[in-house]
């Protein structure tokens, strides 16, 4: 999420009131406190030990620092201490991000980076647009054993009946689960490069493809890879046209991999010896042969003013109708192109407008059985439309992870904060 939000403190108070039933001090107890304690298993300082073994929650990519005995000895003499915050600005409900569908198993799985979870829905769940309550879930995977933190991309393996979730920021792991997972389910994990977003799976190759923002690459792993298994190959380099890659779709039918690029490019941010600077390239959709390796040029590039691309985040190819769907996040739209579109071309149709309820769409998936698309917004709703919907069309169903009308804070892991003293606003990066 790339938002800088200026928020009035009155909004902070509203969220506090919703979550805790009162302003002022943050009282212990309640759902948010329970969520906080569930996120961290241990709150008292402990010495860290790193046992080896698969699925070891501690891993071994360096040991966290130990708290020093000298500091602990004088800790209680230092003024301050265990002070409660006077306000908490946070959303107590999930925020949808990625979405993937298994039409045969009749499942839709959506990720949630806000509460660090993944939600499993029946693909045919009743979710009338006028319904105001939380849409019933089949399962909600969350908790320390899941490894889920900033859960973004999701892909399903219908053969093995497992789903995979990428971590875009706080974690550097790919966690996978059986379709039957629920609650604090112990994940199988694989170490992956930092800043992974999109994911696709190929049964033909037996591989998983990951789009990685920070190191500007597509990395491929064997299905079933775990722990520190290295990648099999990668597509990276100046000729690839990759630039801050986000969503990824593996089109097995046509032997192609489709990637959505925001256009930001920097080698220096991971290579301290790189003498050149960064660049802002136009947003684009790049398409590669799925057996590509190294610094390979894309087969096609969709780029230019006619495309209307504006932070293109999620991508999906409907191989039945040869259409390419793109979540145009910052414009609150779904753009639909011909699958083989190339160059500065306009979309075939644009789905967007107030009736659609589309707002910051992050993921899109296709249900060929019902000929419908699911659109996951970064917030409290996902909408289901007829595949051929366009313009300001109303959704057929609305999947809600919070009661209708619940405010959305929209945080995406704020790493930096500033205070605007003129406007009495908090500025937070996403």
């Amino acid at each position, binding site marked *: 999420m790339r938002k800088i939000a200026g928020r009035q403190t009155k909004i902070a108070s509203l969220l506090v009131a919703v979550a805790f039933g009162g302003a002022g001090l943050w009282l212990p107890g309640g759902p948010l406190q329970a969520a906080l304690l569930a996120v961290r298993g241990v709150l008292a300082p402990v010495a860290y030990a790193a046992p080896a073994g698969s699925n070891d929650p501690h*891993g071994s990519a360096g040991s966290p620092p130990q708290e020093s005995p000298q500091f602990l000895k004088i800790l209680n003499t230092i003024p301050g201490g265990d002070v409660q915050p006077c306000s908490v600005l946070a959303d107590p409900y999930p925020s949808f991000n990625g979405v993937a569908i298994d039409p045969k198993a009749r499942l839709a799985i959506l990720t949630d980076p806000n509460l660090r979870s993944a939600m499993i829905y029946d693909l045919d769940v009743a979710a009338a647009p006028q319904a105001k309550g939380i849409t019933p879930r089949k399962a909600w995977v969350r908790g320390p054993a899941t490894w889920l933190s900033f859960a973004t991309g999701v892909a399903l393996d219908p053969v093995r009946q497992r789903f995979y979730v990428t971590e875009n920021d706080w974690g550097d792991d790919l966690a996978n689960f059986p379709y039957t997972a629920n609650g604090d389910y112990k994940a199988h994990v694989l170490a992956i490069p930092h800043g992974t977003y999109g994911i696709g799976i190929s049964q033909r190759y037996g591989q998983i493809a990951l789009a990685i923002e920070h190191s500007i690459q597509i990395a491929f792993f064997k299905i079933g890879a775990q722990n520190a298994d290295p990648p099999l190959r990668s597509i990276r380099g100046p000729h690839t046209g990759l630039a801050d890659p986000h969503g990824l779709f593996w089109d097995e039918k046509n032997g192609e991999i489709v990637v959505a690029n925001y256009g930001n490019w920097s080698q220096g941010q991971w290579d301290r010896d790189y003498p050149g600077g960064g660049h802002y390239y136009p947003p684009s959709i790049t398409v590669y042969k799925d057996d590509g390796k190294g610094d390979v040029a894309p087969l096609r590039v969709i780029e230019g003013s006619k495309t209307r691309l504006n932070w293109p985040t999620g991508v999906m190819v409907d191989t039945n109708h040869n259409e390419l769907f793109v979540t145009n996040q910052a414009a609150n739209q779904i753009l639909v192109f011909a699958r083989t579109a190339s160059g500065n071309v306009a979309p075939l149709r644009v789905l967007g407008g107030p009736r659609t309820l589309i707002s910051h769409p992050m993921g899109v998936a296709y249900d060929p059985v019902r000929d419908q698309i699911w659109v996951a917004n970064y917030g409290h709703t996902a909408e289901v439309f007829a595949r051929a919907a366009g313009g300001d069309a109303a959704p057929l169903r609305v999947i809600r992870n919070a009661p209708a009308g619940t405010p959305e804070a929209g945080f995406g892991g704020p790493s930096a904060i500033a205070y605007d003293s003129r406007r009495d606003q908090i500025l937070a990066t996403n």
Partner: protein
Amino acid sequence: MIEGQHTKLTRVAHGIDYDPVHDLIVASEPLASSIVTYRGGSNGDVPPVRVIQGTRTKIHSPWQVAVDSAHNEIWYADFGGGYVAAFPLMANGDVAPLRTIRDHEDGMRGVSGVAVDPERNLVFVAARSAHAPGAILVFDRLADGESSPRAIIAGPTTGITGLWHVQVHGGKIFASITGNDYRPPYDSGGYAPVADCKGPISEYAPRPLGFIAIWNENDHGDVPPRAIIRGPSTGITTITGLAIDPIHGEVFTRGTLNGVLAFLIPNFF
């Protein structure tokens, strides 16, 4: 909300500052190696008024930014480069920094935070150093090149187990202590797991509590914080950005939850 393609924002902006004198918002963009400036109050898909980016800037991986309104300069911490640097406030395009500070003796690694005291002409840097998992290094504001810090706050008594950001006000240093010396399982280029990697590290793995620590600007050496905000009731186990509102005596940070915590501690200022 500032968002959209024209804004030139990228994911994981690890730095933002507000300049009340000129009414400007300055942010760092590591995925584009740039620093962007907006007018205060900007909203929507608006382009920045200035963008610092290019070969001459030497920007690698910019983290915290700090505006010195008195001297009209923008400071930034270069996480990958291992230094802090200053640009003119109105700098735009591919321009060289005014000054670049590197630690002459021990070197700085993982430079994550920078703050400026324009009255005392001091620059405060949050970084890992050769001898500590985290240190606050104090330099003369006009230092340039390989420089010796005037003071270093580091050592076991400080409680520093990792640092994210720093702020200064009224002779005090506010720092977010992460409790996490982040070491990714992959090499910096994302090519392969590091040599001794057996797997990823879970975000849920037990680790020291993160906290907010306050020192005096003239503190030096292995000294404990003058005040702390630390404990299970704070909502902080992990911690990142830090902002202060001296007018109301508030400190803002992101704790374990995906959001912002505010602490009312006027007596700490």
